[in-house]
């Protein structure tokens, strides 16, 4: 990969993204499920069904993501408590979890609430009477970090080739044709791989944003 040159995110959005036209390539109806999707779905179902092994597996797969959000928002000293509270709340409210959605995003959504709560306790911010909504500024910051971590984490779990192709397209700033030439992979495959990968990232992000709207998962 050649040395990345600096591109401001806004600029990246202002132009057609090198053959990746978002509204066209990321529709949900394209592409079949991957094995990873099946794995996610299986774990989500058994978690919702109350299988204790699913709690452990969810922790092993998503504990780092939850803990990283906690560490980045409340500090390393108190992060373990937030992570612990997150998984305990998630397990106790698992009946609120819709297993057709992203467990990763749902857990992170709960961690978001717990982190905001923890921040508020530290700051001794008074809770506005009549509602217990989070402080807007704190919430926005936690949301922002959460989205960044979620995308990074989900990217890391994509199939090896898909992740590599997305990295070449977005971080290496190559066109799909350049990637195809360089990797010796047919152009159609490059496009469909990237499309499917982005769809998965998009699904996690959509789930997480819905969590932020509040759906009773808060404990």
């Amino acid at each position, binding site marked *: 990969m050649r040395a*990345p040159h*600096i*591109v*401001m*995110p*806004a600029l*990246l*959005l*202002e*132009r*057609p*993204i090198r053959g990746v*036209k*978002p*509204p066209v390539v*990321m*529709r949900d109806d394209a592409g079949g499920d991957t094995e990873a999707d099946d794995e996610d779905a299986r774990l989500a179902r058994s978690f919702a069904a109350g299988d*204790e*092994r699913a*709690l*452990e597996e969810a*922790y*092993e797969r998503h*504990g*780092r*993501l*939850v*803990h*990283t959000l906690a*560490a*980045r928002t409340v500090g*390393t000293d108190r*992060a*373990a*408590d937030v*992570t*612990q*509270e997150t*998984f*305990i709340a998630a*397990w*106790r409210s698992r009946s609120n979890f819709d297993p057709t959605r992203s467990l990763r995003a749902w857990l992170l959504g709960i961690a978001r609430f717990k982190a905001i709560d923890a921040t508020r306790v530290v700051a001794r911010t008074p809770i506005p009477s009549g509602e217990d909504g989070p402080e807007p500024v704190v919430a926005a910051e936690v949301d922002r970090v959460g*989205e*960044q*971590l979620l*995308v*990074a*984490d989900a*990217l890391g779990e994509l199939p090896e080739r898909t992740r590599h192709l*997305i990295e070449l397209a*977005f*971080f290496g700033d190559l066109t799909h044709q350049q990637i195809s030439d360089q990797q010796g992979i047919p152009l159609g495959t490059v496009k469909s791989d990237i499309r499917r990968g*982005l769809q998965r*990232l*998009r699904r996690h*992000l*959509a789930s997480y*944003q819905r969590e932020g709207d509040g759906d009773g998962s808060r404990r």
Partner: protein
Amino acid sequence: MAPDGEQTAGGGDALDHRLLSLLAHLREHPVEMVDPPAFLFARIEAELRITTVSVTSPVVTSLDAAREARDARRTRSRPATWLAAAAALVVLGGVGGIATVQRDDPGSVVLASAQLHPVVAAGNEGQHNRFRGEEPPKAYAPAGEGFAQLIGDGGKRTLAIATKHLPDIPAGYKIEVWATDDAATTYHDLGPLPVATAEDATTTLDLPAGVDLTRSPVIELTLEELGSSSLPSSTKLLRGELP
């Protein structure tokens, strides 16, 4: 914000744009994930189980349940998952677990807890070698981890020990738990772990009268021959100090 020539922005487009923006951010700011501390899952399990058990019965009963679960595991085939081991970890908890114990049953309180870390082999040789002429087990690479918790219940004190990923224990050997001081001058034998293999184990040991953990706060797990004397061998597996 809409790119030139794109369709009218709806909710889906906003999401697409957000994703691309996040990827762009990631490109400039790679994320480093932070591992949770060891045994955090045991704490989570412990808190969930303490609460479940204590709804209908006091925590003291759950200690008995832990022993029963442990004894049951000895006799039937072992469900060797960490979760199964953690099922017996009823009273093992961190901050959250302590709070729960105190709230639900004032009689049973976690007094102190410590992580147990692998002992580096270089420091293992020395004054306590007791493998008289016998070939000691092959040297153990530092491995595994553990968690010790001192629990007070009225006048009675119990040490709960959990281990994970210990090396294989050869036939004819066991793992013994000791309390000692920083200088390793005096060793108190607290009892064996119910484990014959590398499986994850939990146990609770009643502290013998006369063992003062403020003077011997270092908890050590060693490899011992079955039927050996009351001195620890030089093969030390895990060690940690109660605060």
